[in-house]
């Protein structure tokens, strides 16, 4: 027999790694947050919730009986429906007549094959015959197993049905037919024409709920546009309302939904609860049939991504948008500002260039899509859709068509705002408000199990309403504690935490917190906190402010790969408070101090940072709206121009200051080298400059402003940091 030797072999492999894998995967329960099937839930959950509501009403009855109770009049597949249909309307009677006719047909064919299709029983016989003759191939499933399974399974099936018959007689007085009775058609009581009901040839019997049970009082109908559940009870740390609570339940999907109007009694899945109470009814006709599907009440395992906006997902094409200007150069292609011709909504179209891709659709884009489809938060840039040139499948196969990721349009990026000092000013409350939003977005990302791995000012977008959005998740990835090594060549150098600089490959969410801490200081000083030229220089700069790394307060330090070769010229005392207390409010300095803790274990988490007094005590109503340059988006074409001239300058003169830094920066290598972040084998992010990346203030407005350095690029290679670091070490530390 053919049991796919490969899979079985892997099966054996896996046994050893079983528990480890389990550990890994449990992480990702939380990582893949809201992914129950929206439509499914909509169709199914009405039943589910009804069941539950009933359960709550007569909670003394065991659930089994309840199910039987409301199930018996119509649910049973095995016959008996005729007797149950008596009290019904004429239409029902007609239906049942027709059903009977079909039943009898079926029963004739059934009686021949004893509950199994001729083909099946035939194959089973064959396999039995084989077993007796004894064939050889054996893996985990040896050949005799098939016959055994078939035999046992078959036997059990028939004995089960016998049992079922008994049971039914016991529990349901209305059903009198024997278990060997023919299958009946399912009865749909929701006013559907019988013709719409397929015969139960599927192994999903088309069960529905009986109409006899009075439908539970429906909650007041939701506004028709509202497809997503309204705000759950305020989550612990100021999470967005649009998220289902399931996002925050880390282990399974079961979440109690406290504040919903018809509160489902106990643990119910978010979707069931949400959908039953507020998905607009009635359902579209095509969904009706799906109601008869089995309903998953408690979700287990990882379900596939189910974004909240799935109804609008993948519905538009490029014709829906009118391209305006190019606003940036993204990781894998140009970024355009565009307008949705139908809704008038502004969007950013991030083109995925496929022309020069050797590896097809870039893995960074795949990663970003995959992750953004799972993240829904007001402080994370929203991926609204993906569109494609309007061409046929054949053309699509032949031509390297363009894909465009459609993002919500955000007017500015933070680096653009910070550097246009003359245009934009922040007071401390405004900074606090922005930073709070950053922490909320970050806490959400971490909660769902991801690491952003490229937090920096140019990846933080701010719209004219002062709302902050985290963008560019091309470097982000799912994080599982202790599961595997991750490349430490992530995060733009200036925002890179000490553990990464020391070669840590088992890092966690603390790396993003460090980056955010750097940003906190930068929002007040308006210049990067630590703008090192290279990794060791960066470490030196960090040490000057945050104190030298010391195993006394960071024991794990000694295990880091670079620690042994790391020689400090001198030891510094931590003087972060002294340095910043003149620039920042005292409480903000306290938070900065906690975020820029060298030891990642002791570094504050994003979640805890949200509870820090400075953030917590912010009175949102007192924050004045930030005066943002409404007339000028702070990421524009001339920023590119600016960069180009800076680059030219650097190339020409050998460079000084910022420009030379930019070119001598590891980015150069990351840009030219191969770059897949995980296996180091594809070549996708040539220029990891960013979506909306613009670090340059309007040139026309402020010509004298010196060109800032292009933000250093997140190097992407795996494990070659040792090679790259070598040249720098003697210069700085020996």
């Amino acid at each position, binding site marked *: 027999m*053919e049991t796919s030797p*490969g899979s079985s072999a892997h099966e054996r492999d896996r046994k050893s790694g079983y528990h480890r894998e389990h550990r890994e995967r449990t992480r990702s329960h939380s990582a893949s947050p809201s992914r129950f099937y929206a439509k499914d839930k909509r169709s199914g959950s009405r039943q589910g919730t009804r069941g539950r509501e009933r359960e709550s009403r007569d909670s003394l009855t065991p659930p089994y009986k309840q199910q039987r109770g409301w199930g018996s009049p119509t649910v049973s597949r095995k016959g008996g429906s005729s007797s149950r249909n008596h009290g019904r309307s004429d239409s029902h009677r007609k239906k049942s007549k027709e059903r009977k006719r079909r039943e009898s047909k079926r029963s004739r064919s059934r009686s021949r094959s004893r509950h199994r299709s001729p083909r099946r029983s035939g194959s089973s016989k064959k*396999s039995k015959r084989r077993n007796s003759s004894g064939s050889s191939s054996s893996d985990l499933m040896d050949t005799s197993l098939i016959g055994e399974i078939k035999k046992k399974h078959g036997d059990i099936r028939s004995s089960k049905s016998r049992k079922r018959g008994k049971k039914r007689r016991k529990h349901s007085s209305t059903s009198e037919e024997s278990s060997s009775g023919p299958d009946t058609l399912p009865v749909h009581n929701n006013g559907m024409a019988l013709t719409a009901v397929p015969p139960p040839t599927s192994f999903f*019997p088309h069960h529905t709920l009986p109409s006899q049970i009075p439908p539970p009082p429906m909650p007041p109908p939701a506004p028709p546009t509202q497809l997503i559940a309204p705000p759950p009870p305020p989550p612990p740390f100021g999470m967005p309302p649009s998220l289902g609570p399931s996002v925050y339940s880390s282990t399974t999907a079961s979440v109690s939904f406290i504040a919903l109007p018809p509160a489902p009694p106990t643990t119910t899945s978010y979707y069931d609860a949400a959908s039953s109470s507020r998905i607009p009814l009635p359902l579209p006709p095509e969904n009706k049939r799906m109601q008869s*599907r089995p309903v998953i009440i408690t979700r287990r395992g990882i379900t596939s991504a189910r974004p909240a906006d799935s109804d609008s997902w993948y519905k538009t094409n490029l014709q829906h948008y009118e391209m305006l200007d190019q606003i940036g150069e993204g990781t894998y292609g140009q970024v355009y500002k565009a307008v949705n011709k139908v809704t008038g909504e502004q969007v950013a179209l991030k083109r995925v260039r496929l022309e020069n891709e050797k590896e097809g659709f870039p893995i960074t884009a795949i990663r970003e899509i995959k992750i953004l489809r799972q993240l829904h938060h007001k402080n994370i840039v929203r991926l609204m859709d993906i569109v494609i040139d309007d061409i046929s499948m054949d053309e699509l196969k032949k031509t390297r068509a363009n894909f465009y990721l459609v993002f919500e349009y955000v007017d500015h990026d933070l680096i653009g705002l910070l550097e246009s000092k003359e245009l934009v000013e922040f007071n401390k409350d405004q900074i606090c408000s922005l930073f709070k939003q950053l922490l909320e977005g970050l806490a959400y990302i971490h909660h769902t199990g991801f690491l952003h791995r490229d937090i920096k000012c140019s990846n933080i977008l701010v719209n004219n309403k002062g709302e902050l959005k985290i963008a560019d998740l091309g470097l982000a990835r799912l994080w599982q504690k202790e599961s595997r090594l991750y490349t430490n060549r992530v995060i733009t150098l200036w925002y890179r935490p000490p553990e990464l600089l020391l070669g840590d490959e088992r890092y966690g969410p603390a790396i993003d917190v460090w980056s955010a801490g750097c940003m906190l200081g930068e929002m007040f000083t308006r210049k990067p906190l630590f703008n090192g030229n290279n990794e060791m220089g960066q470490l030196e700069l960090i040490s000057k402010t945050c104190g030298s790394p010391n195993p006394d307060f960071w024991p794990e330090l000694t295990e880091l790969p670079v620690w042994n070769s790391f020689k400090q010229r001198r030891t510094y005392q931590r003087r972060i408070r002294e340095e910043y207390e003149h620039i920042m409010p005292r409480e903000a300095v306290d938070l900065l101090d906690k975020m820029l803790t060298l030891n990642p274990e002791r570094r504050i988490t994003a979640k805890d940072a949200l509870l820090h007094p400075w953030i917590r005590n912010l009175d949102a109503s007192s924050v004045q709206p930030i005066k943002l340059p409404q007339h000028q988006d702070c990421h524009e074409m001339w920023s590119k121009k600016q960069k180009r001239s800076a680059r030219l300058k650097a190339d020409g003169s050998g460079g000084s200051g910022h420009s030379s830094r930019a070119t001598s920066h590891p980015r150069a290598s990351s840009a030219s080298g191969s770059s897949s972040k995980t296996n180091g084998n594809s070549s996708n992010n040539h220029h990891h400059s960013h979506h909306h990346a613009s670090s340059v203030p309007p040139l026309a407005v402020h010509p004298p402003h010196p060109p800032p350095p292009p933000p250093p690029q997140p190097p992407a290679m795996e494990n070659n940091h040792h090679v790259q670091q070598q040249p720098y070490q003697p210069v700085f530390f020996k």
Partner: protein
Amino acid sequence: MMVDWIWSLDSLKATPSIQAGLTKEQELLYRREGIKLISEIGNALNCKPRPTIGVAAVYFHRFYMLHSFQKFSREVTAICCLFLAGKVEDFPKKCKDVCQAAVTHYPDIYVKYQNLVDDVMGTERVLLHSLKFDLQVGLPYDALLEYKTMFPDMSREQITDAVQIAWTFINDSIYTTLCVTTEPQMIAIALLHLAFTVKGYKPVQQNMDPCWWSADVSNWPQESVDKACHLVLDFYAATKEQPVLNDKRLS
């Protein structure tokens, strides 16, 4: 019709391939052959059934719910699914390597493709478009591992044993159309049930539930679960007669 990548069983009788003239048996055979290619070439590339091969198989089955075998050759689609699943699951393989492995293992099948790499990348665009970029796919393994902890009445050996058998069933279930009609969690339940049946274990049912899964999945009686199991058993029976790609040639 399809909701969230779960089709009704009727849809299986009217797939694009069948509408274009294939018989149902032929289609199932073609699917098995495609999955066999994914599985074997995936093994050659050190891909694991979980997740890469499993995800690739789901892509493959979904793709042929939307396109016909007549229009898109299964051998190219198979390696394309494998290639994409590698990228999605963060174990990327180079397109060139995937194609090389394919040609090495199945020269008869792939020798006619002069520009296999281009074909794969072309199909990838169609695949992504067809999948609507719903790249995150749940597999039954995760649910199975969760169920492993939910039978306190069974001895450790018993449950481990059953889960391992169910795991093998899941590995092999990718050859069937189970994944386009059944949610991963329900596949896990069905095949764990099958494993219990094979070993003769009877999980203690709590709360007088009719089946041990009733608390998790309602409206799903035993006979439906049995039918799902039979899909996998039918696969074993069918391939025993005639192993998939026995002579390394497509039928």
